[in-house]
């Protein structure tokens, strides 16, 4: 049985066939007329050899529609992601929907709502909770707590990945800043896992050398990767949803051609999110309907091309707290993305734009992920579930359904029952401490930490990960990216351990 949910009904389409075609044509036109700036000569050469018009001076490639169409056909419509525990393997694409941790730089104190850099023990605990949550299929240990106490920034994500691989056997996200992908790939290979890495993209219409390089490294390692094509409306892209969608599809085409010419058939997904910005401050606004609509439009286009989708619609809220605003902003957008065919929903635990991550929020949102998954799987239809014979057997009052074999068999087959939502009766609630959902989530986190034991690494795997970390530390130290003062604080911090 595969992990995740399968949508049982057609994906919601919000553009007409004509509108969809006009976006497609606009993107093709843009690639042919203006093209992409790609700051990587090797990639440009491959594209020139394939018949694209390349200006090496300007690092600009213009791509004929025929090459775009041909390369789009080469993209696998789904791919398998191996986890270090094969029970957690996933197939991304088609009609599947998976949930993934949201991201957040810092740990948040739930009493004061102040944030601060996280400790190794806090990262470990966040990963154990993520490992335990039933509706969290992909872990994001890479970007949970990028701000780590006394860890030099260039090592933060690699230390996070090591911790994530130790304390969760689910597939992990990674990325590509400053060559970190070299070490991320080595760590994942050491434990027999794939990664689901996101690659930096510079909007509009630019692929930087580091992004292209990382994409090729992941492709060469046989791993999928995911260019992150987010856009801020009116700043890095058109202010209109239709225009932003055209731009995103043009950029998708540029990436697909670059990658498929390098490695035909390479699995690639697109990470996207359309964000309006507050034109008084320039800040991102994450909870407006435009974000949901834009997501659905991009999902519709990517499904047309058969490209797997990572949607960040619900990855964070603007709210600084775990409150009603965070709940509606994140869950409505995620629901809309899941209904419109997004495959991976970046969701549980992140908030305050990208500032905080909370295990308690992740636990609460795992319930909502279960709710959305329950809807996606649709009703079960057969002679038995239609229950026509039963209805006629039970008849009018005093007939009832509680004592039937049918109820005993089916009552929990089509629904999802929340783990931490308050479903107590009022009378019971007044005698059990009048707890709300957040308080119940805090208790759930404690319970998980006391009882859940992630599948441990083997001794050899532990050693291999330590070895990669050591190489990475040496690499960045030799490049002057870790100063002596940072090094001393870093070593002192590591000597404290992670509370295992």
């Amino acid at each position, binding site marked *: 049985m595969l992990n995740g949910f399968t949508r049982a009904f057609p994906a919601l389409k919000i553009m007409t066939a004509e509108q969809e075609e006009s976006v497609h044509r606009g993107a093709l036109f843009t690639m042919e007329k203006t093209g992409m700036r790609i700051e990587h000569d090797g990639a440009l050469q491959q594209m020139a050899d394939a018949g694209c018009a390349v200006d090496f001076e300007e690092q600009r490639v213009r791509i004929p529609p025929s090459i775009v169409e041909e390369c789009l056909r080469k993209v696998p419509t789904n791919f398998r992601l191996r986890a270090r525990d094969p029970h957690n393997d996933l197939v991304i694409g088609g009609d599947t929907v998976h949930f993934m941790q949201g991201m957040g*730089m810092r740990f948040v104190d739930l009493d004061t709502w102040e944030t601060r850099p996280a400790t190794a023990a806090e990262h470990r605990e966040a990963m154990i909770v993520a490992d335990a949550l039933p509706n969290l299929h992909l872990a994001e240990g890479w970007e949970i707590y*990028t*701000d780590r106490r006394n860890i*030099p*920034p*260039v090592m*933060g*994500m690699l230390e996070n990945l090591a911790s994530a691989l130790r304390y969760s056997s689910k597939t992990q996200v990674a990325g590509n*800043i*400053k060559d970190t992908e070299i070490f991320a790939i080595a760590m994942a290979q050491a434990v027999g896992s794939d990664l689901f890495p996101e690659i*930096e993209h*510079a909007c509009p219409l630019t692929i*930087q050398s580091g992004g292209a390089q990382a994409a090729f490294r992941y492709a060469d390692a046989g791993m999928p990767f995911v260019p992150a094509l987010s856009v*801020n409306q*009116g*700043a*890095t892209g058109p*202010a209109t949803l239709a225009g932003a969608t055209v731009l995103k599809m043009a950029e998708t085409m540029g990436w697909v051609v670059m990658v498929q010419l390098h490695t035909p058939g390479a699995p690639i997904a697109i990470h996207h999110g359309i964000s309006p*910005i507050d*034109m*008084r*401050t*320039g800040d991102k606004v994450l909870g407006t309907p435009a974000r949901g609509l834009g997501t659905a439009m991009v999902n519709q286009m990517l499904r047309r091309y058969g490209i797997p989708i990572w949607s960040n619609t619900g990855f964070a809220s603007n709210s600084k707290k775990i409150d009603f605003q965070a709940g509606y902003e994140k869950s409505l957008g995620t629901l809309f993305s899941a209904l419109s065919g997004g495959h991976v929903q970046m969701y549980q635990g992140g908030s305050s*734009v*990208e500032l905080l991550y909370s295990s308690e929020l992740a636990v609460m949102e795992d319930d909502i992920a279960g709710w959305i998954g329950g809807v996606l799987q649709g009703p079960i239809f057969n002679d038995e579930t239609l229950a026509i014979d039963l209805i006629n057997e039970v008849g009018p009052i005093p007939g009832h359904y509680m004592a039937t074999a049918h109820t005993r068999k089916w009552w929990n087959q089509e629904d999802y029952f929340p783990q931490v939502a308050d479903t107590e009766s009022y009378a019971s609630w007044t005698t059990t401490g009048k707890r709300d959902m957040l308080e119940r989530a805090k208790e759930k986190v404690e319970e998980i930490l006391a009882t859940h034991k992630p599948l441990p690494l083997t001794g050899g795997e532990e050693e291999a990960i330590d070895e990669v970390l050591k190489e990475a530390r040496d690499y960045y130290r030799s490049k002057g990216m870790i*100063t002596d003062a940072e090094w001393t604080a870093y070593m002192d911090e590591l000597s404290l351990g992670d509370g295992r």
Partner: protein
Amino acid sequence: MQDQTLGDLAKAVKEYDGARATALAEQALDSGTDPKDVLAALTDAIREVGDAFGAGELFLPELVSAAEATQQAMPIVEAAFKAGGGSRTSAGKVVAGTVAGDIHNIGKTILCTLLTADGFEVIDLGIDVPVDKFIEVVREEQPDVVAMSALLTITAQEQKRVIAALRDAGLRDDLKIIVGGGAISQPFADSIGADGYSPTAPGGVTLARELLAG
């Protein structure tokens, strides 16, 4: 006649028409208007737009469009100052850039545009700017302010490196350093030894002015 042209120039800025602003600035200078008065017309116009932005009547697209219109007309005015043997008095010289490893462009570009419009002379080093580049340009240009942006935690520390390198090169004490970007906060700015932090681009302009006023 002169007043009419300068009035039209201000209007062109307020209508976000850089080409017309440039043509009108040229026309005013050709007819003998003092470059100082042309500059004043431009900066008064952008200040008016800035005030309307501050009051919540206009928004970033209008503010940035008006600033770009001003910026477009500025080289003509600067050339006139130079031809007259002088130079325009600027509010200060700023070297700005997004630090190494970081490719976030928009916030930094908005700040540069607003600074220019506010009368600063701005050298925009772009994105992914290595420490050495900051040092080299600061040594050459001797700016009053260095402005750095970082949007990622992993790149925020680059700001600290730039400040350390400026100190090592003996350049730190002659200038003010301001920082901003999504990964930056006031405590972080304090911890790396910056002189100021602003969460927004318009706030960055005010900050630069305040720091230079001492």
